[in-house]
């Protein structure tokens, strides 16, 4: 047993003891963990798995404890690497983690039988166990009386009644943990049939007697389970044949797997609780009963659901926007100030255009993430989340997913970043991956400036009133249609596997705890900043570099120095204009306009000859079939960090200076804006009589941006959530291919009409 050394408050060094917290979902496990561990928490990751464990510290009588919050589960019958983490950890088989000195199982007193199932499994792990009997108030309100002292005697391990949300009983719990840590493992266990125990002993010997008995039992019990997969991978056919034979013998002895386990455990639980748990003869009707009848009702339930989803959607869409604009404005202001203060050069440009813009691009997501997770935490904590999944399951099942994928997909219509982070509620790994991979197809708000610019410029003036609206609707519909199709295709190919068993607990309704909600909002924002922030920043700096270099003009002067000089001159003229008489105003205005044009043209020239500009020229043959010239190709390349960047880049390449995507979004007449006019006039380089932008070209650009994954933040978050580079790369490639093909078809068909 490895032990890490920790400093106890009185200065002497005593080894830190480890407590592993185990429990069913919806038992107040996280609340208990937060109450015991306080604010000092960190997240633990393990290679090859996507679940996280939280770690915290507590101290009892000067003894330091490390708490590990294991993922919530109904059973230790692991089916996947993710579910195996808890088992490996408690058995001391997780590299880098000490074997826990005590396992704390938390059980919901109002639903004792099913909760004790997991505890009876924990008793077989060979580690001392303490049972926290949570929600005794809820149980009492339902007329359920539990004799904890008697239950302690019968189970053979301490049972401590607590109310985690009101922090009652925690002192006794801490003392009990301190007293139990490192003691002898539990003596009592659920009695299995003799035939079963015989097979376990036999199999244990066959395996060399080294393996923890718990795993031998799991090997026998879990047909196709993770223990079986892991063991038979190495030892091959012999072991598999042994296990099969043992299972056949059990089946013949009338105690076949998997039924033998549930019958043995629930049978024992019935014995344990008979006489020390009193239930009322008639179950009283609770407010969960009333509320549930309404919220799962065909009409009223659907209505409430739609209203709630609208609220969630509207909040990420509308409430976050002002804060995002504020952040964007603040970053721009800061950039302008720095540009004035610092000498022009690569360092200033790197700082302003690369790093500062990059940081802005990262924190601009925070409002959406924090708001969405605030809502999700409330919905989850009050018990509604399971109802939402219940209502939407059939719809999502049609594309091979489950109801739990609905909210992440809906959130992605505002922004895929929080949407992908919200997929954590999906336990099934394949379902979760499929949802993550198609979420970026939903039309997010970053695509909006692109749509507005092109629809406003090319599909509004001189057309029937319904054309702009219909086009916009069609753009959103593309995502809504393609995402389920791709999900279905993925589930039938790459992510093929047995349809997961959809059994979902519908928890009791309760008032959400403010503490839990705030905690989740902070955690999600922080996790995003830490894990995805650096990648987003790096991509911004990369694109900055590609558009900054080379910076020398043919005259030998550097573009940015030249630009700064012109800007200085412009400022001088402006100052003069402000001081001068009104008569001279027009003259000055002409001067200012001329100077501004010069600046815009120089900036355009600089970017057009940059590395990225050259890359744009290089890919022109590839984008020509889409109806694009190299400038559009270059703008598309530049928009790799974020789609809306394409608007600003087009503005620069077409000599219209810096155009903000917000400006386009808020413009009453898009076609009349500087950029709008520039796009309408833009000619092909090789045939100046032909205009680049036609309706098919505009549509092809929109379809491309509807389907592509030009969003470094999304890719960074996929990397973070899947813990692998494979999936972000896959997403980028498949979406780019889809986007290219989609744009090609639209342009080619559109040109024929």
């Amino acid at each position: 047993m490895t032990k890490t050394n920790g400093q106890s408050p009185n200065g002497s060094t005593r080894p830190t003891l480890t407590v592993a917290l185990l429990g069913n979902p919806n038992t107040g496990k996280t609340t208990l963990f937060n109450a015991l561990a306080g604010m000092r928490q960190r997240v633990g990751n393990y290679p090859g798995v996507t679940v996280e464990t939280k770690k915290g510290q507590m101290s009892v009588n000067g003894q330091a404890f490390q708490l590990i919050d294991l993922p919530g589960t109904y059973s230790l019958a692991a089916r996947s690497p993710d579910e195996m983490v808890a088992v490996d950890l408690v058995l001391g088989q997780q590299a880098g983690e000490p074997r826990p000195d005590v396992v704390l199982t938390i059980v919901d007193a109002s639903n004792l039988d099913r909760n004790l199932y997991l505890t009876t499994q924990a008793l077989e792990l060979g580690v001392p166990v303490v049972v926290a009997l949570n929600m005794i108030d809820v149980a009492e309100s339902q007329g359920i009386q539990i004799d904890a002292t008697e239950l302690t005697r019968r189970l053979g391990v301490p049972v401590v009644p607590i109310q985690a949300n009101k922090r009652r009983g925690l002192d006794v719990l801490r003392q009990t943990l301190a007293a139990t840590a490192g003691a002898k493992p539990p003596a009592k266990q659920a009695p299995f049939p003799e035939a079963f125990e015989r097979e376990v002993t036999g199999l244990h010997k066959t395996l060399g007697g080294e393996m923890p008995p718990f795993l031998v039992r799991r090997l026998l019990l879990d047909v196709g389970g993770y223990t079986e997969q892991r063991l038979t991978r190495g030892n091959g056919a012999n072991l598999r044949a042994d296990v099969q034979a043992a299972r056949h013998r059990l089946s013949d002895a009338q105690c076949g797997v998997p039924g033998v386990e549930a019958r043995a455990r629930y049978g024992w639980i019935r014995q344990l609780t008979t006489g020390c748990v009193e239930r009322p003869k008639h179950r009283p009707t609770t407010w969960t009963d009333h509320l549930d009848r309404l919220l799962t009702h065909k009409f009223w339930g659907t209505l409430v659901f739609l209203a709630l989803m609208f609220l969630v959607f509207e909040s990420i869409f509308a409430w976050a926007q002002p804060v995002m604009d504020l952040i964007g404005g603040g970053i721009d202001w800061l950039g302008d100030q720095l540009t004035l203060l610092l000498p022009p050069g690569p360092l200033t440009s790197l700082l302003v255009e690369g790093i500062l813009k990059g940081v802005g691009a990262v924190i601009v997501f925070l409002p959406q993430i924090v708001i969405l997770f605030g809502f999700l935490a409330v919905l989850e904590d009050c018990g509604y989340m399971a109802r939402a999944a219940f209502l939407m399951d059939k719809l999502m099942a049609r594309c091979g997913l489950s109801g739990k994928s609905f909210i992440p997909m809906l959130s992605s219509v505002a922004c895929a970043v929080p949407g992908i982070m919200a997929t954590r509620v999906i336990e099934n790994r394949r379902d979760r991956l499929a949802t993550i991979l198609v979420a970026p197809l939903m039309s997010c708000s970053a695509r909006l400036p692109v749509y507005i610019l092109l629809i406003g410029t090319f599909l509004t003036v001189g057309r029937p009133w319904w054309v702009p609206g219909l086009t916009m609707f069609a753009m959103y519909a593309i995502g809504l249609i393609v995402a389920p199709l791709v999900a279905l295709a993925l589930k039938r190919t790459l992510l093929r596997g047995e349809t997961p068993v959809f059994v979902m607990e519908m928890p009791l309704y309760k008032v959400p705890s403010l503490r839990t909600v705030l905690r989740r909002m902070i955690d999600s924002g922080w996790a995003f900043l830490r894990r995805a922030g650096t990648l987003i920043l790096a991509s911004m700096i990369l694109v900055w570099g590609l558009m900054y270099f080379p910076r020398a003009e043919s005259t030998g002067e550097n573009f940015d120095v030249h630009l700064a000089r012109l800007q200085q001159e412009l400022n001088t003229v402006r100052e003069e204009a402000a001081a001068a008489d009104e008569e001279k105003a027009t003259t000055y205005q002409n001067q200012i306009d001329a100077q501004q044009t010069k600046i815009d043209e120089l900036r355009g020239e600089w970017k057009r000859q940059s590395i990225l500009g050259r890359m744009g020229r290089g890919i022109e043959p590839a984008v020509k079939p889409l109806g694009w010239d190299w400038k559009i190709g270059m703008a598309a390349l530049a928009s790799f960090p974020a789609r809306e960047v394409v608007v600003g880049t087009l503005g620069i390449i077409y000599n219209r200076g810096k155009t903000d995507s917000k400006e386009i979004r808020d413009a009453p007449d898009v076609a009349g804006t500087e950029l709008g006019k520039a796009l309408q006039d833009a000619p092909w380089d090789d045939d100046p009589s032909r205009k680049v932008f036609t309706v098919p070209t505009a549509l092809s650009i929109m379809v491309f941006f509807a389907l592509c994954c030009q969003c470094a933040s999304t890719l960074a978050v996929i990397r973070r959530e899947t813990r692998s580079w494979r999936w972000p790369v896959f997403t980028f490639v498949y979406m780019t291919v889809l986007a290219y093909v989609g744009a090609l078809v639209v342009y080619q068909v559109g040109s024929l009409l």
Partner: protein
Amino acid sequence: MPSLDQLRVGQRARIQSLSGIDTLLQRLMEMGLLEGEEIEVLAIAPLGDPVEIRVRDYRLSLRRREAASIAVSLLEQADSEAQP
């Protein structure tokens, strides 16, 4: 013998047997769906699937496909659990 997916909202029944592949059976049994247990259908989702039931002291939802593997015998209606 009817299976769980054939019950209407408000009907109560006793589980007689479970059948199906091992992973499904294990999952259902872990959640407390065993022979002899009493269940009550609480709701059916607006789109017709899944169904919500009460088993032991809690509420569980499962798809019709899974519910079809649980054979039940109907219990008498009209006691305290009936609709108000």
